[in-house]
């Protein structure tokens, strides 16, 4: 489902390629704590392993993030989702979509994959209960034809978690 959408996506522009190569080098020198980039030959899709931070409700749990870059990255945000099974969190849907403003409206080209990862880990770490968003079933049903979370009209109302 997701792989077919990636194949139909436009290839990275030269600017996007250069910037991603720089990010990859920086990641190799200085990876964000708790994350591991799974090496592939595909610059346009990164698979990243996330380890729940010690002392949080996700300690000793491992999840996978899939980051897909658009043609005009970093002018446009990458698409970031958890590969199911996604962590149980009030802002993460069971299909892996993440309700986090910086991935959509609040994206800025000064952000990097590394800074996104830190935001996601911080979002996980501040959760106190393992539960799905209240509208999980309705949302997931709506996304059944492989819709990207970037097409969702998100409401960001909760800044506690």
């Amino acid at each position, binding site marked *: 489902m997701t792989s077919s959408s990636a194949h139909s996506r436009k290839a990275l522009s030269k*600017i996007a390629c*250069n*910037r991603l190569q*720089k*990010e990859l080098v*920086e990641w190799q020198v200085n990876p964000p704590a708790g994350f591991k980039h799974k090496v592939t030959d595909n610059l346009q899709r990164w698979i990243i392993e996330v380890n729940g931070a010690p002392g949080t409700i996700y300690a000793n749990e491992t999840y996978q993030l899939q980051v897909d870059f658009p043609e005009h990255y*970093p*002018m446009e945000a990458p698409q970031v989702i958890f590969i199911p099974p996604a962590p149980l969190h009030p802002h993460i849907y069971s299909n892996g979509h993440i309700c986090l403003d910086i991935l959509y*409206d*609040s994206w*800025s*080209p*000064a952000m*990097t994959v590394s800074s996104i990862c830190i935001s996601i880990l911080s979002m996980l770490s501040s959760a106190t209960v393992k539960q799905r968003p209240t509208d999980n079933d309705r949302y997931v049903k709506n996304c059944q034809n492989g819709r990207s979370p970037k097409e969702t*009209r998100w409401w960001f109302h909760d800044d506690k978690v």
Partner: protein
Amino acid sequence: MFGSGMNLITTVIGFGMSATFIVFVCTKMICRRIRGSQTRLLFQTESRIDLEQAEAEIRGVEPVVVAAIPTIKFNREAFKSMEDAQCSICLGEYEEKEVLRIMPKCAHNFHLSCIDVWLRKHSTCPVCRTPLLDSLEFDTGQSGT
């Protein structure tokens, strides 16, 4: 007699057909207008809450305004004190004689070619989100008084 009757029928049919066509085109235009105003209405009610943010974020900056933002030619000597002489959009290090744009309020700097693309669709500083338009309007307002 027969010929003139035939002519009359053709004329009547011709008139009928063009009248139908005109009515058809008019209805279509009216329908479209009604539907347009409805969607506009829906959009307005939906987005009223985040309208303020949307205005600042989605709308870009006029090319004339962008052109008025100060620029500087990068010079290693002058930028010696800067810890990280790098454009945070492309992550490239500044090279000698490259043209940079300096944001008026926050002084964050970027390659001219990098920031100008961003400002076509957005009006905030990529690093600190300071709205660019407010700062410009504010500045001109101050100089006026």
